[in-house]
């Protein structure tokens, strides 16, 4: 139920932002279509902890700025590697164990790795990630496991709780 309400709020907010109309009639029509969409999503069984993970929202919001800064640093490193006349690349394939408990956590970790230039996740099976790293520094950064720890912290204590709501 909590997830359905939150999905409705997000959808209505998105509708307001995209439409930019604030007349009562249009607001009502927007609300009506939001409700219909939430009902359909519920009937299709799309509203669950994985599809709409409100249980990690605020921790996730703290993670985003750190991830963005990592992406900027990695971008500059890789751009520097590419523009050098003799590219100092050293491609390697790593196998990493993600310490997250849920599949959602593993996916957040894998996607964070892919978003960071210099490392791309090419496989994820039962918590073991295959990562293609372009440079030695990028590979060593991942082996240090900073990002892994932070994603696990995002998942955090919220994972211990059982299913609730819709």
């Amino acid at each position: 139920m909590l997830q359905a309400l939150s999905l409705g709020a997000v959808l209505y907010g998105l509708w307001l932002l995209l439409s930019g109309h604030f007349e009562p009639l249009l607001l009502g029509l927007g609300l009506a279509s939001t409700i219909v969409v939430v009902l359909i999503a519920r009937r299709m069984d799309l509203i669950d902890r994985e599809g709409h993970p409100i249980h990690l929202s605020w921790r996730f919001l703290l993670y985003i700025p750190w991830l963005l800064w990592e992406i900027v640093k990695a971008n500059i490193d890789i751009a520097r590697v590419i523009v050098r006349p003799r590219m100092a690349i050293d491609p390697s394939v790593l196998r990493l164990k993600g310490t997250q408990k849920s599949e959602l956590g593993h996916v957040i970790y894998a996607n964070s790795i892919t978003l960071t230039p210099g490392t791309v996740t090419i496989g994820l099976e039962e918590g073991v990630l295959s990562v293609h790293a372009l440079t030695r520094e990028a590979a060593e950064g991942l082996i240090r496991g900073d990002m892994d720890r932070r994603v696990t912290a995002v998942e955090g204590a919220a994972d211990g709780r059982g299913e609730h709501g819709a």
Partner: protein
Amino acid sequence: MALLADIASWACLIAGSLFALIGAVGIVRLPDVFARMHGAGIVDTLGMGLILAGLMIHEGFTMVTVKLVLIVVFIFFASPTTTHALARAALNGGLKPLVDGKNAPSAEPGERTGGPSKT
């Protein structure tokens, strides 16, 4: 104030274009499919981000900026997915990542294949 905003906006646009260009050069210069994906990664993180940030500064606090922010959010969710799909397709098509000029053997968890860490 308007002048400052203009300068910041153009700085972001030019820096973003520069990163997009470097990413494109990377796609051409890097040796194999898997390495080239890193070049594409530059284009759709910092290249895209800086160009859209420049446009946001140009627009100020308007509805257009809200939509630009949404574009950034959606690209940040979609780009790793497409990169991953590309990597899977390459692997399934029988391509192996180049490691030290050779194709990589499979490694155990926690191990690293190729590169200077081998003793």
